[in-house]
């Protein structure tokens, strides 16, 4: 995959196509390129949260008011969201999450591993549909599947972008 077709650019195109105009986030290194595209777009709003669960309230509120929004976070943040995911679920509000994985593949930091390994089972335990992408070329199709199921069906859907796509952070160690 060349620089011109970075997965973030493809996902951004799909976001624009679907008129998703708000992205809520606690950032992750792997999301930098995408979040910069959102921030630079005058028709979009980037909402920085203090904890990821606020995102469930904001996207539900936006849907109630007739707008589309989504949440971007790293896998550790998923743990903060579990009870809050009950809100979009009980209202059948679309809740679209883009999650960059940590603690999953070649992780240097053992503190990330517990939540990273538990991300998918925990999300599925509370009824979130998961769309994993282990290769850069799979991210945009996974995003399309997740977004359309969320907005057309009123489901909570998470795209899980593998650490194989993002690259494990090495902290300069061998």
């Amino acid at each position, binding site marked *: 995959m060349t620089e011109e077709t970075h997965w973030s650019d493809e996902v951004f195109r799909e976001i624009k196509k679907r008129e998703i105009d708000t992205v809520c986030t606690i950032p992750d290194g792997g999301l930098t390129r995408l979040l910069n595209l959102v921030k630079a777009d005058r028709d979009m709003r980037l909402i920085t949260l203090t904890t990821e669960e606020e995102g469930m*309230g904001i996207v*539900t509120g*936006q849907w109630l008011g007739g707008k589309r929004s989504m949440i971007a976070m790293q896998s550790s943040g998923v743990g903060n969201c579990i009870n809050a995911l009950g809100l979009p679920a009980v209202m059948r509000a679309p809740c679209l999450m883009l999650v960059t994985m940590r603690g999953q593949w070649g992780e240097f930091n053992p503190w990330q591993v517990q939540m990273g390994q538990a991300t998918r089972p925990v999300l599925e335990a509370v009824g979130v549909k998961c769309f994993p992408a282990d290769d850069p070329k799979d991210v945009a199709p996974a995003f399309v599947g997740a977004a359309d199921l969320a907005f057309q069906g009123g489901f909570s859907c998470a795209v899980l972008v593998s650490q194989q796509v993002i690259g494990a952070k090495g902290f300069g160690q061998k």
Partner: protein
Amino acid sequence: MATSNKINRRPFVATLLAQRGNALVIPGLGSPTWDCSAAGDSPEYLYSWGGMGLAVPTALGVALARPDRRVLALTGDGEMLMGIGSLGVVSAQGAKNLSILVLDNESFGETGRQTGLTSERADLCAVARGFGISRTMHVTEQGKADELASFLFKEEGPCFAVAKIALSEDPWSLPVKDGTAIARRFRIALGVEKA
């Protein structure tokens, strides 16, 4: 101590809501939801039965989607503290049509009246100002309801207020609890969904 609070919540909330105009109301789970229901049902009340901490973020989402409407988050001290960081998000987004009222009985009233953290030193208006929400109001008297209503529904937001309410034994006033029904009638009232 909580027992020194004098405001009687049910008539106080009813007086406020009678002056809301076409403002949308996002009550938090538990007593704020029962208070709205007791004041008279409306599809413009987004009743909540769960998701503690989410009243303010949900109200912010609605406020950003509908800048043409005033939005009131009506919550309690326990829920406000659980989602206290959301005041930082509200401040950063500068939602001019959003107001927040904390009904503060300094207790976890729903679960057995266990003492809460606002009973002694914690000052929520000071916290809100610390996050950059400059318009705040602290109310301790029943007779200030009209002044508070004017603050919440007419001042440029974001506005943040605390009303020190008494611990009270109020009759149950349970509204519809089906989330899809609550959401659907709210969206119909907003013209987002067809009836």
